[in-house]
């Protein structure tokens, strides 16, 4: 399934948040959206996921999602959004309960995704007992459980400390390799973007426009953080973004 965003503009009251955003995400590719804080990248993701209605423009799903997919457009949230009163298994179960699956099918899916995210032995733990990285793995397990056609990730690693973030990035690379996922990955971290994305989109400050698009064709699992080509790309992206970030910084203090 391909995702196509055409001429998307959006405003909250008087404030224009997005201005004529066009973007195509091909099946099996990850698009990273980077930009200074408040550039509307999270809004863009909410619009794509159908959690908000666009002011103007269109978001199109091209092609049918696979039949097995229970929830074609699936989120992974920055703050994990786990129900604290449900166990690890219960949190995964939550998103399967409204789909008319038998108990046995649900249990099979839960067991499978917890196995794939190395959480099988923690199935009865409550979120409060888990580290940040584990919580995000539960959220990933929950997302995998509904067999998404497109993953929408809103700064999934930003709430984690830098060591956990490194480990989780390896996990995500593994995931891309195994599952052949399509996704939009919003981040403000350029290291994450060049490690995980096939197409990197730099957005301007509010109202968010697309400033630049960079393609990285090498498979994500062949990328090395110390690769000079990636570092060059990262520097290039930072140059494109720096003035915007600085302007935002001044805007906020001038408020």
């Amino acid at each position, binding site marked *: 399934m391909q995702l196509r965003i055409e001429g998307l503009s959006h405003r909250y009251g008087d404030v224009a948040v997005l201005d004529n955003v066009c973007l195509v995400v091909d099946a099996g590719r990850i698009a990273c959206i980077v930009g200074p804080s408040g550039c509307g990248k999270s809004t863009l993701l909410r619009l794509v996921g159908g959690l908000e209605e666009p002011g103007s423009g269109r978001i199109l799903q091209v092609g049918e999602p696979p039949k097995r997919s229970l929830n074609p457009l699936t989120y992974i949230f920055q703050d994990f*959004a786990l129900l604290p009163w449900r166990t690890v298994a219960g949190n995964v179960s939550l*998103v399967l309960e*409204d789909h008319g699956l038998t108990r046995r099918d649900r249990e099979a899916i839960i067991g499978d995704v917890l196995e794939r995210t190395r959480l099988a032995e923690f199935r009865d733990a409550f979120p*409060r007992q888990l580290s940040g990285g584990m919580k995000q793995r539960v959220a990933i397990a929950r997302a995998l459980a509904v067999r998404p056609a497109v993953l929408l990730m809103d700064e999934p690693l930003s709430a984690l400390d830098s060591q956990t973030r490194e480990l989780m990035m390896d996990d995500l690379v593994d995931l891309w390799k195994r599952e052949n996922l399509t996704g939009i990955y919003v981040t403000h971290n350029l290291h994450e973007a060049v490690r995980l994305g096939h197409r990197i989109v730099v957005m301007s400050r509010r109202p968010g426009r697309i400033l630049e698009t960079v393609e990285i064709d090498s498979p994500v699992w062949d990328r090395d953080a110390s690769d000079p080509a990636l570092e060059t790309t990262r520097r290039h992206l930072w140059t494109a973004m720096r003035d915007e970030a600085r302007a935002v910084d001044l805007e906020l203090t001038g408020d």
Partner: protein
Amino acid sequence: MTDTREPARPVRFRGGGFAPRPVRLAGPAVFLVLVAAWEAGARTGVISPLVLPAPSEAIGALVELWVSGELWEHLAASLSRLLLGWVSGTVLGGLIGLAIGLFSLVRAGLAPLVAALFPIPKIALLPLFIIWFGIGEESKVALILFGTLFPTVIFTYGGVDNVDRTLIRMGQSFGLGWFSIVRKIILPGALPAILSGMRVSSAIAIILIVAAELIAAERGIGAYIQIAGSLFATDQLIAGVALLSVFGLTVNWLIARAERLLLRWRP
């Protein structure tokens, strides 16, 4: 670069404190000392028996009440009114609070009304309730229902308002139905506030039932205290008040147990 001739001293500790820690037996000790002093005062004649009977006399009255079998009659009368009124007030209040929390129209219509009626001392309405529902059980149950309704409404919709919106968006993003979101996300999220509301409403219910029984009842702890008071049987009066205190403590303990059981997921 250390200069050995410079004087060296350990850094002074200046943290600590401001962190309450459990101290066992302090509570019971204070209670025992107070009762002992009271007993001693009564025995030595410092406290006149007419002003305040000795604790032992109050215990005597309590034993008498128990032996005669009247204790259970009074307790049963108060408890049944309390349970009926409190349960119906809590269920109704929970439903209204949920509706206010979920629907803007209900909120706009009812929230001001609740705010206007909540501060009324409900005992002032008892004569009205007696006219409407008669002198029997109904007026007392109605009073408790009415008294527990408003705090429950307020705590419930406050709890619903405080449910983490990202959790609700998460539910929507996974395609959960409306009822699923209410049942699996909003209600459990509001549960801590609802239980706090029960704590408050149970205290209000105890106060109201005793007040109602003081005014108009033949049976019940309030009636027992009322009769004791009019006969200047101060030992029985103290015994009745002590019963009320035990009553309140028991309810509190039950709710604490419920919280520990239902909210064990809390950090």
